[in-house]
């Protein structure tokens, strides 16, 4: 073993259509209660309804009215989820200079960006910049240690969690508030993903439109939201008697260097990323009890990811779940949301089912959890993110052994 410090997950916060608290999110997943709705467009191509929007969201109590005016919706969601995570952790108990923030976002303030094109106001730049969320969280939590934003499309949230782990290991922070956020439900963004053929644009039953690993899948469904975790040096968390959901033990990142938007079809980059994360965690594939898949519901992702998983773990050997069937795909949010789900899986000893999976694509040699939640033993659980751009990121969480 190395002398680097172990890291605990001590706080969780989420804001998305599938839940405005971790408990609500978990309940949605256990019951396969879909938060997914489809974008609908009128004849002119204008969005009539955005997909998987978080309805009734209000940042009051977290941001003052002036602060709401100065922030994109994406950042408002982020601040709420981050502050919730810190409250859940029982507060931050290290000096300001030992606190850090890492945010991940794919699209930054894209709503503000589109609204201001050709007519920017004074607040245009600080509203749309990708690092706006990181600023607001540092300001709200008096974080004067490192803060940064990573932007690796759909892997942003996982990279944020992994980079936070590295900060604590390297000794530059003791507590990191890390997560991802995106609010990309604009007409232009939706049309772009629809025209590219990556997003489902029509389906008879919109609630079950997101169907990872299902033979009838048609693509992903956009979602919005934010998810944050409080990561803390395990010894400090123990010393203050904090509840520890899980330990964060491994981080892997690789690049496909293959195609702008498609994963390498044999999943080589994805497999290497999982292997790296497991090695970093000091464990092996045969010890892994559960895989929280990237599972977007695009044919290209599902096949490549399934190949990578079955090559590494053996065909149908490890229970796999794909939360995006319930949550939709929140881009930079996704990896952080799934890290939250993975932490809950470790704590509860349960792999939630993958909703809407009626007929597994026979090309995916996976043991996908369907129907009922499945009990999993203590042990390492891996969460995957594989992004446009070929950016792969995986994190490993484990049971907090005493």
């Amino acid at each position, binding site marked *: 073993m190395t002398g680097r410090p172990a890291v605990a997950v001590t706080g969780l916060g989420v804001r998305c259509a599938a839940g405005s608290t971790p408990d609500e999110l978990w309940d949605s997943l256990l019951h396969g209660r879909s938060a997914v709705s489809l974008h609908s467009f009128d004849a002119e191509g204008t969005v009539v309804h955005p997909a998987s929007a978080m309805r009734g969201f209000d940042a009051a109590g977290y941001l*003052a*009215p*002036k602060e*709401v005016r*100065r922030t994109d919706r994406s950042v408002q969601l982020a601040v709420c989820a981050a502050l919730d995570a810190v409250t859940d952790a029982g507060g931050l108990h290290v000096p300001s200079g030992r606190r850090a923030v890492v945010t991940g976002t794919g699209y930054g303030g894209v709503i503000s960006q589109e609204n201001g094109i050709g007519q920017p*106001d*004074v*607040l245009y730049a600080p509203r749309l910049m990708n690092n706006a969320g990181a600023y607001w969280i540092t300001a709200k939590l008096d974080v004067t240690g490192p803060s940064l934003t990573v932007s690796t499309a759909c892997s942003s949230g996982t990279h944020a969690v992994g980079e936070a782990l590295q900060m604590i290991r390297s000794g530059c922070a003791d507590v990191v508030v890390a997560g991802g956020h995106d609010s990309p439900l604009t007409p232009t963004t939706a049309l772009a993903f629809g025209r590219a053929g990556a997003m489902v644009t029509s389906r008879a039953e919109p609630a079950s439109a997101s169907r990872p690993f299902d033979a009838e899948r048609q693509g992903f469904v956009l979602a919005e939201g934010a998810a944050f975790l409080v990561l803390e040096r395990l010894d400090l968390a123990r010393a203050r008697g904090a509840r520890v959901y899980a330990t964060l033990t491994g981080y892997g990142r690789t690049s496909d260097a293959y195609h702008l938007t498609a994963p390498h079809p044999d999943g080589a980059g994805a497999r290497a990323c999982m292997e790296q994360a497991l090695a970093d965690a000091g464990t092996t594939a045969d010890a892994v009890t559960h895989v929280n898949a990237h599972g977007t519901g695009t044919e290209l992702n599902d096949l490549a990811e399934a190949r990578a998983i079955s090559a590494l773990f053996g065909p149908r050997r490890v229970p796999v779940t794909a939360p995006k069937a319930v949550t939709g795909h929140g881009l930079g949010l996704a990896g952080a949301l799934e890290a939250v789900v993975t932490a809950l899986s470790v704590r509860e000893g349960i792999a939630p089912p993958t909703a809407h999976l009626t007929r597994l694509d026979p090309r995916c040699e996976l043991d996908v959890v369907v129907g009922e939640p499945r009990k999993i033993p203590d042990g390492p659980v891996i969460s995957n993110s594989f992004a446009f751009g070929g950016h792969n990121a995986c994190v490993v969480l484990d049971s907090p052994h005493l």
Partner: protein
Amino acid sequence: MEAEHGDVWEALRPLCARVMSVPAETVVPHARLVADLGADSLDITELEVASEEMFGVSLRGTDKSGVSTVGDVADLIVRLRAGAPGLHSPVGR
């Protein structure tokens, strides 16, 4: 001048309320921008830009050393619209 002042005030009041995110009823002539309405540098910049569009005058580059209250802003706008000489500082930004 009085009628002019009234027009400016009618438009300036909701503008200040919006920019500073405060209730319109708190925007009274003697309300101080910073001390009472909580304005910071971003608010002041936003107010300057909006004033250019709304009143057709440039507050940027003018001497605002005597400007403290909303009423002072209204007075400055009225004077600028009347083309009062000596109000424009030689240094723009």
